């Protein structure tokens, strides 16, 4: 039982409020990912849970116990830092054993646990080496081992992969998934990399300016972002945004006037809005097809084509008042720069946001939406 509850947590550094009145419950055994732009307070939040920093106000509970006033070691949490923070003068073995020895465990038990953990992380052969003699990925494993060996109730990871190169990052990412599958502990994982967030999270908590912008399963956030911020933060390449006016607002669809004067249909519930309002239409690049199909289509000229092997990104200029539209084509031969093309998209693929950036509810039970995200 190690549910983590944050209740009305605030944290300020002097005058600057970094975490503002944040409520969040992380269920027992959940792999929870904090995602957000740099400086939004992810690390601060993690350090509050760890006990490395004190809340300005609010309570923190772990497994039902109020730990707000408890020092880090009494919270039974373990943390893996971005820079690994291995003790430079100790061998991998000593690094992992340090916390256990401080906890006055017997030498034999410590030895057994360190070796067991090392075996499960495939670092047995590295135990006698010092951090300076290990590669980045190996240091990372030792740092994870140091956390795992203590058998904490909650794991905290602060951008643990950001110092690794791309290839290693992909492999270590999978490792984290397996680790969680094996241990089933509550894990809180901080990152600014949405691929990590999408692939690892049971639940994704999107942070913005010290508060939760949206939380839920990653695919839910991807398909039903509640705000312009969530919609544009998730997904690469970014969602296309097109300024529009609401021409018709109905409970099961909306009619949009686009800058080029054409009228398009969007599959959202617009009952709450009034016609004439300024809105923003959001279209994910993979939801736009080349060719003239269906009611929503746009004419434009290809300005740039980026070939990425299995797919290509096509930039299309279409109206001076709006930016280029980016589409992602899969298979076939992409058009050449300078070519005139038509783009079209399904009403169900639309995201629509009001002037304050709030999303209109998308209509459920459409046909299968395009599959999610990047790779």
């Amino acid at each position: 039982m190690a549910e983590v509850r944050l209740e009305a947590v605030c944290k300020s550094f002097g005058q600057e409020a970094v975490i503002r009145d944040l409520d969040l419950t992380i269920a027992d055994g959940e792999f929870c990912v904090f995602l957000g732009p740099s400086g939004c307070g992810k690390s601060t939040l993690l350090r509050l849970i760890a006990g490395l920093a004190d809340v300005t106000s609010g309570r923190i509970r772990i497994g039902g116990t109020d730990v707000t006033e408890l020092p880090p070691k009494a919270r039974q949490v373990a943390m893996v830092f971005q820079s690994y923070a291995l003790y430079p003068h100790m061998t991998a073995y000593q690094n992992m054993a340090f916390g256990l020895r401080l906890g006055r465990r017997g030498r034999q038990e410590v030895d057994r646990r360190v070796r067991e953990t090392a075996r499960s992380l495939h670092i047995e052969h590295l135990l006698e080496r010092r951090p300076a003699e290990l590669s980045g990925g190996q240091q990372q494993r030792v740092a994870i081992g140091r956390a795992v060996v203590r058998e904490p109730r909650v794991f905290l990871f602060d951008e643990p992969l950001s110092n690794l190169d791309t290839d290693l990052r992909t492999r270590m990412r999978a490792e984290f998934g397996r680790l969680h599958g094996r241990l089933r502990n509550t894990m809180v994982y901080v990152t600014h990399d949405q691929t990590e967030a999408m692939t690892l999270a049971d639940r994704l908590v999107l942070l913005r300016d010290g508060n939760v912008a949206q939380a839920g399963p990653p695919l839910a956030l991807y398909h039903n972002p509640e705000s312009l911020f969530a919609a544009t933060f998730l997904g690469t390449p970014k969602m296309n945004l097109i300024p529009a006016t609401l021409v018709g607002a109905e409970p099961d669809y909306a009619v949009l006037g686009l800058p080029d004067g054409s009228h398009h249909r969007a599959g959202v519930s617009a009952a709450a809005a009034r016609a004439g309002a300024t809105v923003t239409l959001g279209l994910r690049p993979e939801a736009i097809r080349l060719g003239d199909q269906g009611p929503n289509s746009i004419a434009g000229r290809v300005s740039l084509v980026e070939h990425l092997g299995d797919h290509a990104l096509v930039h299309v200029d279409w109206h001076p008042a709006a930016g280029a539209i980016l589409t992602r084509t899969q298979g076939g031969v992409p058009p050449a720069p300078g070519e005139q093309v038509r783009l079209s998209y399904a009403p169900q693929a639309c995201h629509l946001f009001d002037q304050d950036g709030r999303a209109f509810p998308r209509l459920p039970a459409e046909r299968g939406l395009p599959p999610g995200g990047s790779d």
Partner: protein
Amino acid sequence: MSRGLSRAGLYLLAGIIALAAAFPFYYAAITSLKSGDALFSMDLLPRQWHWDNYVAIFAQQPFATTIVNSFWVATGVVSVSLMLGLSAAYALSRNRFRGRRLLMMTILGVSMFPQVAVLSGMFELIRWLGLYNRIGGLMLSYLIITLPFTVWVLATFMRRLPREVEEAAIMDGAGPLTIIWRIFLPPLMPAMFSTGLLAFIAAWNEFLFALTFTLTHEQRTVPVAIALLSGASEYELPWGHIMAASVTVTVPAVVLVLIFQRRIVSGLAAGTGT
């Protein structure tokens, strides 16, 4: 200018530098090995090795006591400054508080104190503590000299250790003392070593306080003893004895320096923030 010529010039320069640096000491060593009238002949090689001067300083003067005094003072000063310096450096490098920079500058400022400016105040303090003409008094006064740079250098080195490592130790359940001893100290050992060595040399070589705060032969340290070595009359300095004493006390320092060259160089560099 051809390459060969400039190379030759470089070697010549290097030779001159080495000669200029080492020769006075060599000459002192030669002098110390002469006895009687040979002292006043300016041979650059000793014709015979006479140890008379060395025998004399240990037999006629309490020179052995002096060396022991110097040794204890220096050792005591080194241990106390390292211990105090380590905790102070920890406090300084760990806490980010307003005026930390100012405090660091003040500490550096203290190390630039003219010793004579604290002479009368220190004299009073030492007498009040009953440490006048005692080795303890010297140790106390030397801390004013050694502590600032010890703190400064150790704080500089400590800041290089990432805060996350310390936090990892906190997460592992370590208290402040454990952190200092088990996490900070081991990687700091090289820095501790070079500051310790610098403090040792500073204490070993100090003169003004030693001259002022000691009275009797038995409490003197090496530099004072050498400065006050006197012969039969005021105009007849016992140069042979002086050179023998000089060589005797310099050899340990020189050996230390030669062995630990690189550490001294890096310690000096860190001490001035270059």
